[in-house]
Protein backbone atom coordinates (compact mmCIF):
# COMPACT_ATOMS: atom_id res chain seq x y z
CA UNK A 1 0.00 0.00 0.00
CA UNK A 2 2.72 2.42 0.98
CA UNK A 3 4.34 1.89 -2.37
CA UNK A 4 1.24 2.93 -4.25
CA UNK A 5 0.85 6.01 -2.06
CA UNK A 6 4.41 6.96 -2.91
CA UNK A 7 3.78 6.44 -6.62
CA UNK A 8 0.71 8.60 -6.58
CA UNK A 9 2.58 11.24 -4.67
CA UNK A 10 5.35 11.28 -7.25
CA UNK A 11 2.67 11.67 -9.87
CA UNK A 12 1.20 14.58 -7.95
CA UNK A 13 4.63 16.12 -7.59
CA UNK A 14 5.19 15.92 -11.34
CA UNK A 15 1.82 17.55 -12.02
CA UNK A 16 2.41 20.29 -9.45
CA UNK A 17 5.76 20.95 -11.07
CA UNK A 18 4.15 21.07 -14.49
CA UNK A 19 1.49 23.50 -13.24
CA UNK A 20 4.05 25.70 -11.53
CA UNK A 21 6.27 25.89 -14.58
CA UNK A 22 3.46 26.59 -17.04
CA UNK A 23 1.98 29.19 -14.68
CA UNK A 24 5.34 30.91 -14.40
CA UNK A 25 5.82 30.86 -18.15
CA UNK A 26 2.27 32.16 -18.66
CA UNK A 27 2.90 35.02 -16.27
CA UNK A 28 6.16 35.90 -18.01
CA UNK A 29 4.86 35.72 -21.57
CA UNK A 30 4.54 39.30 -22.76
CA UNK A 31 2.59 38.69 -25.91
CA UNK A 32 -1.13 37.92 -25.42
CA UNK A 33 -1.63 35.39 -28.21
CA UNK A 34 1.29 33.34 -27.02
CA UNK A 35 0.06 33.82 -23.48
CA UNK A 36 -3.34 32.47 -24.46
CA UNK A 37 -1.66 29.32 -25.76
CA UNK A 38 0.38 28.95 -22.58
CA UNK A 39 -2.78 29.53 -20.54
CA UNK A 40 -4.44 26.72 -22.45
CA UNK A 41 -1.48 24.54 -21.50
CA UNK A 42 -1.81 25.71 -17.90
CA UNK A 43 -5.48 24.77 -18.01
CA UNK A 44 -4.58 21.33 -19.28
CA UNK A 45 -1.85 20.92 -16.66
CA UNK A 46 -4.32 21.92 -13.95
CA UNK A 47 -6.79 19.39 -15.36
CA UNK A 48 -4.14 16.70 -15.00
CA UNK A 49 -3.30 17.82 -11.47
CA UNK A 50 -6.95 17.79 -10.43
CA UNK A 51 -7.34 14.33 -11.88
CA UNK A 52 -4.46 12.92 -9.87
CA UNK A 53 -5.75 14.76 -6.80
CA UNK A 54 -8.98 12.76 -7.23
CA UNK A 55 -11.09 15.74 -8.26
CA UNK A 56 -12.59 14.81 -11.63
CA UNK A 57 -15.45 17.29 -11.23
CA UNK A 58 -13.10 20.22 -10.93
CA UNK A 59 -10.89 18.76 -13.65
CA UNK A 60 -13.80 18.74 -16.08
CA UNK A 61 -14.70 22.34 -15.31
CA UNK A 62 -11.11 23.34 -15.64
CA UNK A 63 -10.86 21.58 -18.99
CA UNK A 64 -13.84 23.54 -20.29
CA UNK A 65 -13.03 26.85 -18.71
CA UNK A 66 -9.29 27.02 -18.28
CA UNK A 67 -8.18 25.13 -21.34
CA UNK A 68 -10.85 26.32 -23.76
CA UNK A 69 -13.05 29.30 -22.85
CA UNK A 70 -10.52 31.65 -21.25
CA UNK A 71 -7.81 31.23 -23.93
CA UNK A 72 -10.52 31.49 -26.58
CA UNK A 73 -11.75 34.77 -25.14
CA UNK A 74 -8.22 36.12 -25.08
CA UNK A 75 -7.72 35.07 -28.70
CA UNK A 76 -10.96 36.78 -29.71
CA UNK A 77 -10.00 39.94 -27.86
CA UNK A 78 -6.60 39.97 -29.50
CA UNK A 79 -8.18 39.33 -32.86
CA UNK A 80 -10.46 42.32 -32.42
CA UNK A 81 -7.48 44.42 -31.41
CA UNK A 82 -5.50 43.25 -34.40
CA UNK A 83 -8.37 44.05 -36.72
CA UNK A 84 -8.43 47.58 -35.33
CA UNK A 85 -4.72 47.89 -35.99
CA UNK A 86 -5.09 46.55 -39.52
CA UNK A 87 -7.82 49.09 -40.25
CA UNK A 88 -5.59 51.74 -38.85
CA UNK A 89 -2.70 50.72 -41.05
CA UNK A 90 -4.98 50.61 -44.09
CA UNK A 91 -6.16 54.11 -43.39
CA UNK A 92 -2.65 55.37 -42.95
CA UNK A 93 -1.64 53.80 -46.24
CA UNK A 94 -4.53 55.50 -47.99
CA UNK A 95 -3.48 58.91 -46.75
Amino acid at each position, binding site marked *: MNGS*YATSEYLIAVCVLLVTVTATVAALTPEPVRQALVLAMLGTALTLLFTVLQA*PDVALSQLGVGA*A*VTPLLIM*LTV*RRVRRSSTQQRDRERQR
Partner: protein
Amino acid sequence: MSRRLRLALFWAAAVVFAVAFTAACTGLPDFGTLSHPYGSRAIAAAFHQRTANTISSVNFDQRAFDTLGEESILFAAVLGGLVLLRRARDERLAGVRRGRVLPSTRMFGSLLLPITLVTGVYIVAHGQLSPGGGFQGGVILATGLHLAYIAADYGVLKAIRPLAVLDAADAVGAGAFAVLGLVGLAVGAAYLQNVLPLGTFGQLSSGGLVPVINAAVGVEVGSGVVVLLAGFLDQAVEIVSPTGKDNGAGR
Protein backbone atom coordinates in the same frame (compact mmCIF):
# COMPACT_ATOMS: atom_id res chain seq x y z
CA MET B 1 6.02 55.50 -10.46
CA SER B 2 8.88 54.51 -12.67
CA ARG B 3 9.14 50.94 -13.83
CA ARG B 4 12.26 50.35 -11.78
CA LEU B 5 10.74 51.68 -8.59
CA ARG B 6 7.65 49.58 -9.14
CA LEU B 7 9.73 46.46 -9.58
CA ALA B 8 11.82 47.25 -6.52
CA LEU B 9 8.67 47.66 -4.46
CA PHE B 10 7.29 44.43 -5.84
CA TRP B 11 10.41 42.45 -4.98
CA ALA B 12 10.53 43.82 -1.45
CA ALA B 13 6.88 42.96 -0.90
CA ALA B 14 7.22 39.59 -2.61
CA VAL B 15 10.02 38.56 -0.26
CA VAL B 16 7.85 39.39 2.76
CA PHE B 17 4.90 37.58 1.23
CA ALA B 18 7.01 34.53 0.41
CA VAL B 19 8.43 34.32 3.91
CA ALA B 20 5.01 34.70 5.53
CA PHE B 21 3.37 32.21 3.21
CA THR B 22 6.13 29.66 3.71
CA ALA B 23 5.91 30.06 7.47
CA ALA B 24 2.15 29.66 7.24
CA CYS B 25 2.45 26.46 5.23
CA THR B 26 4.65 24.88 7.90
CA GLY B 27 1.68 25.26 10.22
CA LEU B 28 -0.67 23.38 7.89
CA PRO B 29 -1.60 19.76 8.53
CA ASP B 30 0.58 17.43 6.46
CA PHE B 31 -0.28 16.98 2.82
CA GLY B 32 -2.69 14.10 2.50
CA THR B 33 -3.86 14.29 6.11
CA LEU B 34 -6.55 11.85 7.12
CA SER B 35 -8.51 14.38 9.14
CA HIS B 36 -11.11 16.29 7.14
CA PRO B 37 -13.91 17.02 9.59
CA TYR B 38 -16.13 19.04 7.24
CA GLY B 39 -15.47 16.61 4.41
CA SER B 40 -16.48 13.60 6.51
CA ARG B 41 -19.68 15.30 7.60
CA ALA B 42 -20.46 16.25 4.01
CA ILE B 43 -20.06 12.63 2.91
CA ALA B 44 -22.40 11.42 5.64
CA ALA B 45 -24.92 14.09 4.67
CA ALA B 46 -24.68 13.11 1.00
CA PHE B 47 -25.45 9.49 1.93
CA HIS B 48 -28.38 10.69 3.95
CA GLN B 49 -29.66 12.62 0.94
CA ARG B 50 -29.03 9.60 -1.31
CA THR B 51 -26.81 11.59 -3.63
CA ALA B 52 -24.04 9.44 -5.10
CA ASN B 53 -21.91 12.34 -6.26
CA THR B 54 -20.89 13.96 -2.99
CA ILE B 55 -19.70 17.10 -4.75
CA SER B 56 -23.09 17.58 -6.34
CA SER B 57 -24.59 17.15 -2.90
CA VAL B 58 -22.35 19.87 -1.49
CA ASN B 59 -22.86 22.16 -4.47
CA PHE B 60 -26.59 21.81 -4.96
CA ASP B 61 -27.82 20.83 -1.52
CA GLN B 62 -25.56 21.39 1.48
CA ARG B 63 -23.94 24.59 0.22
CA ALA B 64 -26.45 25.37 -2.51
CA PHE B 65 -26.46 29.00 -1.47
CA ASP B 66 -22.85 29.37 -2.64
CA THR B 67 -23.84 27.96 -5.99
CA LEU B 68 -26.78 30.35 -6.15
CA GLY B 69 -24.34 33.21 -5.71
CA GLU B 70 -21.98 31.68 -8.25
CA GLU B 71 -24.70 31.29 -10.87
CA SER B 72 -25.73 34.89 -10.19
CA ILE B 73 -22.17 35.96 -10.95
CA LEU B 74 -22.38 34.10 -14.24
CA PHE B 75 -25.73 35.75 -14.92
CA ALA B 76 -24.24 39.14 -14.06
CA ALA B 77 -21.30 38.47 -16.38
CA VAL B 78 -23.63 37.57 -19.22
CA LEU B 79 -25.69 40.73 -18.68
CA GLY B 80 -22.48 42.73 -18.25
CA GLY B 81 -21.15 41.24 -21.47
CA LEU B 82 -24.32 42.30 -23.29
CA VAL B 83 -23.87 45.82 -21.97
CA LEU B 84 -20.14 46.18 -22.51
CA LEU B 85 -19.96 44.49 -25.88
CA ARG B 86 -22.96 46.25 -27.35
CA ARG B 87 -22.58 48.08 -30.60
CA ALA B 88 -21.75 51.66 -29.70
CA ARG B 89 -23.64 54.57 -31.22
CA ASP B 90 -20.91 55.27 -33.73
CA GLU B 91 -20.27 51.71 -34.85
CA ARG B 92 -21.76 49.71 -37.66
CA LEU B 93 -21.90 46.11 -38.77
CA ALA B 94 -19.67 44.98 -41.55
CA GLY B 95 -20.59 42.28 -44.00
CA VAL B 96 -18.81 39.12 -42.99
CA ARG B 97 -16.41 37.88 -45.59
CA ARG B 98 -16.57 34.14 -45.95
CA GLY B 99 -13.89 31.99 -44.51
CA ARG B 100 -11.76 34.84 -43.17
CA VAL B 101 -10.34 32.94 -40.24
CA LEU B 102 -6.89 33.31 -38.78
CA PRO B 103 -4.95 30.11 -39.48
CA SER B 104 -3.91 29.86 -35.84
CA THR B 105 -7.53 30.18 -34.72
CA ARG B 106 -8.60 27.55 -37.21
CA MET B 107 -5.96 25.14 -35.99
CA PHE B 108 -6.83 25.84 -32.37
CA GLY B 109 -10.50 25.20 -33.08
CA SER B 110 -10.17 22.05 -35.08
CA LEU B 111 -7.77 20.58 -32.56
CA LEU B 112 -10.02 21.04 -29.57
CA LEU B 113 -13.36 20.52 -31.29
CA PRO B 114 -13.61 16.73 -31.21
CA ILE B 115 -12.27 16.52 -27.67
CA THR B 116 -14.72 19.03 -26.25
CA LEU B 117 -17.79 17.75 -28.08
CA VAL B 118 -17.27 14.16 -27.03
CA THR B 119 -16.53 15.18 -23.47
CA GLY B 120 -19.59 17.44 -23.32
CA VAL B 121 -22.00 14.78 -24.49
CA TYR B 122 -20.48 12.23 -22.14
CA ILE B 123 -20.85 14.54 -19.14
CA VAL B 124 -24.39 15.62 -19.84
CA ALA B 125 -25.41 12.01 -20.35
CA HIS B 126 -23.95 10.96 -17.02
CA GLY B 127 -25.73 13.69 -15.09
CA GLN B 128 -25.29 14.03 -11.37
CA LEU B 129 -24.37 10.50 -10.38
CA SER B 130 -20.78 10.58 -11.53
CA PRO B 131 -18.30 13.39 -12.12
CA GLY B 132 -19.83 16.25 -14.04
CA GLY B 133 -23.09 18.09 -13.98
CA GLY B 134 -24.93 21.04 -15.39
CA PHE B 135 -22.02 23.41 -15.25
CA GLN B 136 -19.41 21.20 -16.83
CA GLY B 137 -21.77 19.86 -19.47
CA GLY B 138 -23.08 23.31 -20.29
CA VAL B 139 -19.67 24.90 -20.69
CA ILE B 140 -18.21 22.14 -22.73
CA LEU B 141 -21.14 21.86 -25.12
CA ALA B 142 -21.37 25.62 -25.61
CA THR B 143 -17.66 25.86 -26.29
CA GLY B 144 -17.62 22.86 -28.53
CA LEU B 145 -20.40 24.36 -30.60
CA HIS B 146 -18.45 27.55 -31.03
CA LEU B 147 -15.17 25.90 -31.82
CA ALA B 148 -16.92 24.19 -34.70
CA TYR B 149 -18.12 27.46 -36.14
CA ILE B 150 -14.90 29.30 -35.61
CA ALA B 151 -13.09 26.63 -37.48
CA ALA B 152 -15.73 26.74 -40.22
CA ASP B 153 -17.68 29.92 -40.95
CA TYR B 154 -19.19 32.72 -38.90
CA GLY B 155 -22.19 33.30 -41.12
CA VAL B 156 -23.41 29.76 -40.51
CA LEU B 157 -23.18 30.27 -36.76
CA LYS B 158 -25.23 33.46 -36.92
CA ALA B 159 -27.93 31.74 -38.90
CA ILE B 160 -28.24 28.89 -36.44
CA ARG B 161 -27.62 30.52 -33.06
CA PRO B 162 -30.99 31.68 -31.64
CA LEU B 163 -29.60 34.41 -29.40
CA ALA B 164 -32.96 35.83 -28.31
CA VAL B 165 -34.07 32.41 -27.10
CA LEU B 166 -30.76 31.78 -25.38
CA ASP B 167 -30.93 35.16 -23.66
CA ALA B 168 -34.31 34.25 -22.25
CA ALA B 169 -33.15 30.74 -21.35
CA ASP B 170 -30.25 32.21 -19.42
CA ALA B 171 -32.54 34.44 -17.38
CA VAL B 172 -35.00 31.60 -16.83
CA GLY B 173 -32.22 29.31 -15.62
CA ALA B 174 -30.88 31.92 -13.22
CA GLY B 175 -34.32 32.81 -11.94
CA ALA B 176 -35.37 29.17 -11.64
CA PHE B 177 -32.56 28.46 -9.18
CA ALA B 178 -33.65 31.27 -6.86
CA VAL B 179 -37.31 30.29 -7.24
CA LEU B 180 -36.60 26.60 -6.53
CA GLY B 181 -35.23 27.71 -3.19
CA LEU B 182 -38.68 29.05 -2.36
CA VAL B 183 -40.14 25.55 -2.57
CA GLY B 184 -38.67 24.85 0.84
CA LEU B 185 -40.28 27.95 2.31
CA ALA B 186 -43.60 27.09 0.70
CA VAL B 187 -43.78 23.77 2.54
CA GLY B 188 -42.65 25.27 5.81
CA ALA B 189 -38.99 24.25 5.62
CA ALA B 190 -35.90 26.41 5.08
CA TYR B 191 -34.81 28.29 1.95
CA LEU B 192 -33.15 25.94 -0.55
CA GLN B 193 -34.03 22.94 1.62
CA ASN B 194 -34.09 19.69 -0.29
CA VAL B 195 -37.73 18.80 0.28
CA LEU B 196 -38.40 16.71 -2.83
CA PRO B 197 -38.57 12.90 -2.53
CA LEU B 198 -35.01 11.61 -2.32
CA GLY B 199 -35.49 8.46 -4.39
CA THR B 200 -33.18 5.44 -4.40
CA PHE B 201 -29.43 5.81 -4.02
CA GLY B 202 -27.61 5.59 -7.32
CA GLN B 203 -30.70 6.01 -9.49
CA LEU B 204 -31.06 8.80 -12.02
CA SER B 205 -33.99 10.24 -10.07
CA SER B 206 -32.22 10.25 -6.71
CA GLY B 207 -31.15 13.29 -4.76
CA GLY B 208 -34.43 15.19 -4.61
CA LEU B 209 -33.86 18.81 -5.54
CA VAL B 210 -30.27 18.19 -6.67
CA PRO B 211 -30.98 17.03 -10.24
CA VAL B 212 -33.60 19.76 -10.68
CA ILE B 213 -31.22 22.54 -9.69
CA ASN B 214 -28.54 20.82 -11.72
CA ALA B 215 -30.76 21.06 -14.77
CA ALA B 216 -31.50 24.75 -14.15
CA VAL B 217 -27.78 25.41 -13.87
CA GLY B 218 -27.16 23.45 -17.06
CA VAL B 219 -29.67 25.58 -18.97
CA GLU B 220 -28.24 28.78 -17.57
CA VAL B 221 -24.62 27.90 -18.19
CA GLY B 222 -25.12 26.45 -21.66
CA SER B 223 -27.09 29.43 -22.93
CA GLY B 224 -25.12 32.01 -20.95
CA VAL B 225 -21.77 30.92 -22.32
CA VAL B 226 -23.11 31.00 -25.88
CA VAL B 227 -24.46 34.53 -25.36
CA LEU B 228 -21.22 35.70 -23.78
CA LEU B 229 -19.12 34.22 -26.55
CA ALA B 230 -21.47 35.72 -29.10
CA GLY B 231 -20.67 39.17 -27.73
CA PHE B 232 -16.96 38.60 -28.20
CA LEU B 233 -17.44 37.02 -31.61
CA ASP B 234 -19.53 39.92 -32.85
CA GLN B 235 -16.81 42.28 -31.75
CA ALA B 236 -14.09 40.18 -33.28
CA VAL B 237 -15.79 39.59 -36.58
CA GLU B 238 -18.58 41.98 -37.34
CA ILE B 239 -18.56 45.32 -35.57
CA VAL B 240 -16.61 48.08 -37.27
CA SER B 241 -15.52 51.24 -35.51
CA PRO B 242 -15.78 54.59 -37.24
CA THR B 243 -12.76 55.91 -39.05
CA GLY B 244 -10.33 57.70 -36.81
CA LYS B 245 -11.59 56.28 -33.55
CA ASP B 246 -9.14 53.45 -33.50
CA ASN B 247 -6.31 55.81 -34.14
CA GLY B 248 -6.15 57.52 -30.80
CA ALA B 249 -2.76 57.28 -29.23
CA GLY B 250 -2.18 54.04 -31.11
CA ARG B 251 1.24 52.62 -31.26
